[in-house]
């Protein structure tokens, strides 16, 4: 193979003519554009046949099953996440309710490992278990990305990042709380149920004494019971519907323990003299979710826990190339999967809550384990570690129970309607970028531009709708809702629901905004590579490095080229 770097003769016409005749140019040396990615593609620091992301019940079961079949498995989990990440509500809505102990990294590592005995079992089964490790990207070769030999994951801890190549990937990334705002929801103490459960059980570091739980479905009741068990007083469970939505028995047990359950109620405001929640104002609603004035009651609490439901964490699946579909009964956008938990992306599997939150239950461990086992077996079989016959035998024992669930978006819509009617339109929908519901539906430019013009005022969601279907990415660009450091974890669902509501569009017709790496907000000096191939540094230019591209037109032919690490600076007359 003859390769020559095209240093002296970049592809502008003068150089092309210098190459000589067009025809009969057989056996010409193959030139390479030194400024292109060719030969500089990142190499993985490590290659593993199977990577499992997420060490919940599904991920551990998958990893163990595959390891038992003889597959080399790397199992990564981001917990314990560091305090700074928690403070940004990543990956869960921690709402500033962490105890200072979360700053003690070794203590948190100890607790997270201790609280998950399955991790030790996985390690015993031969799985390489790495906790405290973020997965911030999946890079997959494609039609416009061929300079990559195989798929890679971007991993990082609090100090550095690295790349791991994989042949099979099982994503068991769990779910995230669905968040709907109300006046005062920016205060510390408004948090998500999933985050509360993590802080209670895995970190043992929840700084809450008196909690009001919003939502009486499985998530709400389970969170309330968990809080009570850990000594947190539950001042009320609030439900916008006229009846408890979750299991009767669980609700009765909570009522017996003295937890008031207020149905047909919504939140008007979270109050506090400082940035902290000190009380929450509730109000009764009628059959139309409309607040009934005069029924307000203020309940003292330091924590308001949103337990309305869960949304599958599909960001890594999306980056890995898995097609998503909308299923309200599974919590919204979920990966398309077959009977073996295979997604549409080659070699990529999904298991547990990220494949769909069945019946809105908070981490249905048995179902997650079954799905994990299946994914682990199928991955092992596809790697040739299991005979197909062995797989079908094992598959029978890991059969996934049929999931019967009701759609959840109608319920979330009822909550949203009640919150809008109780709290109004001037409530932030996006906290990071401070975009209110009104600013969102009026597609107003961000406040810091202080822009006002008649044409701008005439534009809104309605005028956009005349030009084409509503696209959440487009609205995001215009209003900035969803463009902040929490990477739209706190607003993705409510923006989608609001756009659906405001344009009378079914929520499944509002396309999911795109996910881009890094799917965890990591510092530049963590993401940067410790070293780079010499060619990456030496031939780096800001744009294409075409010498004539930026030459002054009045000095035709004069080349201007960017310096590289060689110290090259071409300012030459052609």
């Amino acid at each position: 193979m003859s390769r020559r770097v095209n240093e002296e003769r970049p592809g502008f016409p003068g150089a092309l003519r210098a190459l000589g005749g067009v025809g009969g140019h057989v056996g010409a040396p193959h030139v390479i554009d030194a400024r292109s990615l060719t030969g500089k593609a990142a190499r993985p620091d490590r290659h593993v046949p199977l990577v499992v992301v997420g060490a919940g019940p599904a991920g551990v079961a998958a990893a163990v099953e595959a390891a038992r079949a003889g597959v080399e498995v790397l199992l990564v989990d981001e917990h314990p996440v560091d305090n700074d990440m928690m403070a940004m509500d990543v990956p869960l809505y921690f709402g500033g309710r962490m105890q200072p102990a979360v700053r003690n990294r070794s203590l948190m590592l100890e607790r997270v490992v201790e609280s998950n005995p399955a991790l030790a079992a996985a390690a015993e089964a031969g799985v390489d278990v790495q906790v405290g490790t973020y997965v911030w990207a999946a890079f997959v070769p494609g039609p416009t990305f061929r300079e990559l030999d195989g798929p890679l994951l971007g991993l990082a801890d609090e100090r550095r990042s690295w790349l791991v190549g994989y042949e099979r990937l099982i994503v068991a990334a769990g779910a995230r709380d669905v968040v709907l705002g109300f006046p005062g929801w920016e205060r510390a103490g408004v948090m998500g149920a999933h985050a509360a459960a993590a802080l209670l059980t895995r970190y043992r570091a929840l700084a809450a004494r008196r909690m009001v739980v919003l939502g009486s479905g499985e998530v709400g009741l389970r969170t309330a019971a968990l809080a009570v068990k850990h000594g947190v007083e539950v001042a009320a469970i609030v439900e916008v519907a006229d009846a408890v939505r979750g299991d009767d028995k669980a609700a009765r047990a909570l009522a017996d323990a003295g937890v008031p359950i207020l149905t047909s109620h919504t939140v008007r405001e979270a109050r506090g003299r400082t940035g902290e929640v000190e009380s929450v104002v509730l109000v009764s609603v009628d059959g139309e979710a409309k607040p009934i004035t005069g029924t307000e009651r203020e309940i003292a609490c330091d924590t308001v826990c949103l337990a309305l439901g869960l949304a599958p964490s599909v960001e890594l699946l999306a980056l890995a190339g898995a097609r998503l579909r909308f299923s309200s009964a599974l919590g919204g956008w979920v990966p398309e999967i077959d009977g073996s938990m295979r997604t549409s992306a080659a070699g990529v599997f999904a298991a547990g809550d990220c494949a769909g939150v069945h019946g809105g239950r908070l981490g249905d461990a048995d179902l997650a384990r079954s799905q994990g086992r299946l994914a682990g077996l199928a991955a092992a079989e596809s790697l040739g570690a299991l005979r197909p016959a062995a797989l079908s035998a094992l598959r029978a024992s890991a059969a996934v129970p049929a999931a019967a669930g009701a759609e959840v978006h109608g319920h979330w819509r009822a909550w949203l309607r009640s919150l809008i009617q109780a709290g109004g339109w001037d409530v932030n929908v996006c906290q990071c970028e401070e975009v209110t519901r009104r600013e969102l539906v009026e597609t107003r430019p961000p406040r810091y531009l202080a822009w006002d013009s008649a044409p701008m005022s005439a534009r809104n969601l309605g005028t956009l709708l005349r030009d084409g279907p509503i696209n959440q990415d487009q609205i995001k660009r215009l209003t900035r809702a969803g463009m902040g450091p929490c990477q739209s974890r706190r607003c993705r669902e409510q923006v989608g629901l609001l756009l659906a509501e405001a344009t009378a569009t079914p929520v499944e017709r509002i396309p999911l905004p795109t996910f881009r790496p890094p799917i965890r907000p990591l510092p530049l000096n963590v993401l940067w590579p410790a070293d780079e191939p010499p060619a990456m540094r030496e031939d780096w230019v800001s744009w294409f490095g075409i010498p004539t591209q930026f030459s002054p037109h009045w000095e035709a032919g004069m080349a201007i080229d960017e310096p590289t690490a060689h110290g090259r600076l071409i300012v030459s007359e052609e």
Partner: protein
Amino acid sequence: MSEPSGAAVVIIGGGVTGLSAGWWLARAGVDVLVLERGIVGWEASGRNGGGATHVYSPFGLEEQRLWPQMDDLLGYPTEYQPRRIGVALTEPQWALARRWAEIGEMRGFRWESLDRRQLKELVPIVGDNAIGGTYLHFGGHANPQRTVQAYAWALQDHGGRILQHTTVTGFTVRGGRVTAVETTRGPFGADTVVIAAGPQTGLFADMLGVALPLAPARVEMIATEPIPLMPTGGVAGNGLYGRQTLRGNLVYGGGPHEWVNVPDMAAPEHPNSPLVRNLARRLAELFPGAAHVRLIRSWGGVVENTPDGLPVIDRLSDPDNVVLATMSSVGFGLSPAAGRGISELVLHGRCLFADLAALALRRFADTPPDWRERAGWVVADARLAETR
């Protein structure tokens, strides 16, 4: 909504070049229709560095004249901010920064050299690794996403029409003229057609029997969380282009590109690659004071280049009612002027404010069909297949 109908001028491509041209035409009272495959400004037009400092170009003076007026002219915000600062970490980088400044000086613009202390006062996040810089009293930057939408809305406000989600599939040519543009929504009659379809411009030219050498490539950018606003956001250097947005995010790109093919009219994928890590490193070198800042987003875009990296803005002779417009990967900043130039080509047969001879298609008359291979501007697979 009435049945879609043709227009005096049909523009193929709702990117920044086509939208600006359409806006200038609509302002002049011309019946204009923009056909866009997806959403306006969705591809490279809305994904770039937002730089507005291209005084080397035949459109350069008009670019500098127009940008400060664009918010008022359009009626919508572009987030245009004047002035640029160049940061140099090495002598060659400083020489390049000065060269940029001097090109401006040749056109009558002012600039100053900055020592490290002055640089640090203006850009508090630069470090002791900076050796100096340039302060340009010209140039600037704007928000690409907001600007493309502003063009689109302003065009509509002047009576122009935009059809999104409409893919052009071919042309009806009669008597040496394109009489209609065929699309997935049926044909649209046209007196004049402007093809400003980015990487696909060459494919459309090909349908008309015209060779327009274009090579598409994928490029990438990164964005950090917001940090406190610096007095001048248009700061770049160390092989990066970009800016601090008015929200405070550091948004930068640069480094190696990947040559790709866009074989059909489908929207190209533009994934990111592990290059985002190298970009993070370059940015932290440029701004050591921001090395701890978090990266929250990255994106990619597909842009096209001609063999000399210069635009092709030209009115064809056969068919004689078609204007080709590719900005060769440098379209956003020049768009106010380029759109105006294109509108004049349509209306008057020539650009009245600048000499576009250097941008004519005929300079590629001798370009061999395998020019991409000869330049090494080829797709990875194609290269491998050949070398086997």
